[in-house]
């Protein structure tokens, strides 16, 4: 197993720990569940540490780690593992307002936003969160998701229109 020089490793470790709050938010907005989100973050960190030699300084480290987390999430979907108990936030925080598509969200709560995100197809959900919440550029998102920038834009436009309909915006 290749040994990384300690002097190089410390900053990476600190970068990783420093990005945990945003990684958790991203994971939660993808999965809708705190438990799954923290598992996903841990898996992504494990993979990032194993692959840290692949990180190129010219890429923002956040974009690189977000892509790893996003890929781990896609793997999980493929694996079927995400289809267990799911919307724990929607269940517990304000169950009364989470009728999904049927409910017009008069007041946007965390749970209702997560429920609306959950109603989007995964490929729309991820671009929506990466651009609107995590503030990545279209080009960064195209590179993270491996699709052309035009595809990112059309997914994002569809996601926003659907969300606007749900939220009554």
């Amino acid at each position: 197993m290749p040994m990384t020089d300690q002097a190089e490793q410390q900053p990476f470790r600190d970068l990783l720990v420093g990005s945990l709050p945003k990684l958790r938010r991203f994971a939660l907005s993808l999965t809708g569940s705190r438990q799954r989100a923290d598992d996903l973050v841990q898996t992504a960190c494990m993979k990032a540490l194993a692959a840290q030699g692949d990180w190129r300084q010219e890429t923002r480290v956040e974009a690189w780690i977000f892509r790893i987390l996003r890929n781990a999430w896609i793997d999980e979907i493929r694996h079927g593992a995400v289809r267990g108990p799911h919307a724990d936030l929607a269940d517990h925080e304000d169950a009364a307002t989470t009728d999904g598509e049927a409910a017009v969200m008069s007041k946007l709560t965390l749970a209702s936003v997560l429920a609306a995100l959950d109603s989007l197809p995964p490929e729309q959900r991820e671009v929506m969160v990466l651009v609107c919440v995590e503030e990545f550029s279209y080009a960064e998102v195209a590179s993270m998701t491996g699709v052309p920038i035009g595809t990112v834009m059309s997914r994002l436009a569809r996601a926003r229109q659907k969300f606007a309909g749900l939220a009554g915006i």
Partner: protein
Amino acid sequence: MEKPTDTELMAYADGELPAPLAAKIAEIARADPDVQRRIERFRAVRAQLAQTLQPLAEEEVPEALRRAVLDMADGQTAADPRVVAFAPRVRPPAWRAWQVGLAASLLLMLGGVAGFLAGARQAGEGARSVAAVGSHVSAEIARHLSSLPSGSDTGIADAHLRLIATVLASDGTPCREFEVDSTGTGRTSTGIACLRDGSWFLDIAVAAQAAEGGFAPASSFATLEAYLLAIGAGEPLDAAAEAQALSAATPAD
């Protein structure tokens, strides 16, 4: 300029348009309330989403998660491969072991899995039909591993077999992820079997109480991910590459 498309208006709202085009859109929007309203709608969705999810990034990271990441990062120098405390769910040793070296990782995981399987065997009929770790899988499962494409599932004795994916280890060995749901016991075993000299060997298996809907919980998925990382597995093969990789399998019976 013709009436701008939704995608153009969205890119304008996001500040993603080159300056000359942005200037044109701004001019059109000043003259056309409908265009202005569409731009505002894109902005409003972004603002609502960002505002609502903002507090999540300000939450304190749970100490168990922070500790687990630090421990993984420091794993190369840590001598004590103790299990990371991550109550209440089981954290397999793989979390700590992945960096210690391949041999150590395998031993730790196999030790842990033997325990899991022993429990599974007592608990239900279905687990018995899989195999002990390190040995051949049953002839019935071997036949399905050799022939069924990933994404498909089939009934086997007292259980349900689901083929998840095929990957190649760094030495080119084809390995398959699969799940076995034991009928009636609520147990799901997730495993990875690898094809060596024409036979399928069970390299790792994790037995877990199935979540609702018969799927393994995420933590067992993480264990398999650690194993795949340890054997240098690449991305899952597509259907054609999978068929090619499986052509090395001889009929198991």
